């Protein structure tokens, strides 16, 4: 009985997350429109919200096509891997103090980093298995991007871990009497930049790069397989936003309102920042992204870790 209820709950969580991803696609188009002097999709349903449903139906009703020149197994596996890794990461994300699947897990943050690496595998395999030059270029870029942002991101998170003394997300939020954005401003900025790169979103959407690589790693994908990639991207965006809210903005801490509402508000604000960045900034060349990662973010992140460690050690001595 308990197992059944748990399965039901997990199904419900997954469905809610899929709904969130679908809604975000619509919300992004709408917000982007407003930021660019347009209206965005506003035809179907109140405020055009039916567009999310229409897009989902369109993707689901398309043919499940596998090109002859693609590696059939990897081509099918890659989108699932992307969507799965993004969904699985949410297991350790708490909505409130006692409201999560595995919020107390003592390697929660590590699990999320591992899953994000798995996500990169999905993108890389998808591009490689497609057997298309543009896809391969996108995949190569995804890997090049991965090695340049993952290290600064991990180091930026290390600052948070040093301060809170915990790897579980519950523990980290509980340790924030003061939101860590105050104590870790540098780490916050590095995490945000690395997060944009992690989710392959503009200005760092080099693996996709519609204006250069057709559609990058998902050039050969269509229908629901493309939908999985899409889902993975928007779930990844949600994950990074929720992580930013949990790790740096104080999670569910806040006056008057219930904790989970505070978390949702903070997450929505971070997601808006992502949309805002997309509406504003052009895409750099990918050697520029790598230069930024290796020559700027990595030394800054290292400095951040050392300074945090020193400050924490002195704090304990005093």
């Amino acid at each position, binding site marked *: 009985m308990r197992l059944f209820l748990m399965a039901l709950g997990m199904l419900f969580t997954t469905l809610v997350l899929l709904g969130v991803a679908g809604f975000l696609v619509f919300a992004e188009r709408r917000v982007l429109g*407003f930021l*660019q*002097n*347009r*209206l965005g999709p*506003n035809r179907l349903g109140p405020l055009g919200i039916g567009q999310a449903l229409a897009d989902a139906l369109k993707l689901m009703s398309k043919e499940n096509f596998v090109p002859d020149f693609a590696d059939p197994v990897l081509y099918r596996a890659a989108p699932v891997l992307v969507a799965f890794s993004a969904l699985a990461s949410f297991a350790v994300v708490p909505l409130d103090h006692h409201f999560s699947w595995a919020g107390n897990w003592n390697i929660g943050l590590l699990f999320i980093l591992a899953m994000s690496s798995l996500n990169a595998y999905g993108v890389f395999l998808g591009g490689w298995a497609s057997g298309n030059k543009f896809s391969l270029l996108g995949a190569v870029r995804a890997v090049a991007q991965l090695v340049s942002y993952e290290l600064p991101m991990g180091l930026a998170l290390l600052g948070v871990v040093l301060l809170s003394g915990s790897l579980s997300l519950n523990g980290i939020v509980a340790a924030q009497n003061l939101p860590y954005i105050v104590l870790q401003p540098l780490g916050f900025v590095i995490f945000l930049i690395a997060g944009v790169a992690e989710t392959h979103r503009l200005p760092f959407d080099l693996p996709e790069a519609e204006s250069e690589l057709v559609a990058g790693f998902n050039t050969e994908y269509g229908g629901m397989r493309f939908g999985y990639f899409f889902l993975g991207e928007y779930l990844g965006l949600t994950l990074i936003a929720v992580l930013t809210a949990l790790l740096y903005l104080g999670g569910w801490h806040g006056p008057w309102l219930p904790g989970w509402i505070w978390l949702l508000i903070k997450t929505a604000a971070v997601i808006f920042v992502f949309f*805002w960045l997309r509406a*504003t900034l052009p895409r750099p060349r990918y050697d520029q992204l790598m230069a930024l990662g290796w020559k700027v973010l990595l030394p800054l992140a290292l400095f951040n870790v050392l300074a945090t460690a020193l400050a924490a050690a002195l704090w304990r001595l005093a």
Partner: protein
Amino acid sequence: MSVWRNISELGAGLWTTLRQLGRTSTVSYPEEPLNLPPRWRGRPVLTRDPDGDERCVACQLCSAVCPTRCIELQAGERPDTRRYPLTFRINFSRCIYCGLCEEACPTLAIQLLDEFAFSKEHHADFIYEKEALLIDGTGKHPHYNFYRHSGVALQDKDKGEGINEKTPVNVRSNLP
């Protein structure tokens, strides 16, 4: 320091896009009316003068000047010897809305008004006959009548004092 300049430029860019929030250049056309310019060239129509007579005198100038040869008409004559079009036919599947017919018309009969959104299923439906072209109004020139004149000033009479003459209009007031 170029680093600080770059960061401040990032901030300026972000501020620029944020200021656009809530503004829009889009006109939701079928729901919101379009604001067409006064000299918009829409579908040509035949207008009447202020007294209700057809302005067209079937001089064929519009038909002659039309670059796509889409205007065709036959002239008739009224008992009072004034000419009028017996038939007047415009093929709108060929019309390019250039407005040359309007410029050529000596009596300001043919005018391009603001109708622009019309579509048909068949090309044949685009051939408009005179009944569909002739409107009851005066179009862009509400007071103009080709036959209404004020004559010339002579020794013992001023402009507009002879038989069938009207007082002259103020030329500064009827500019388009």
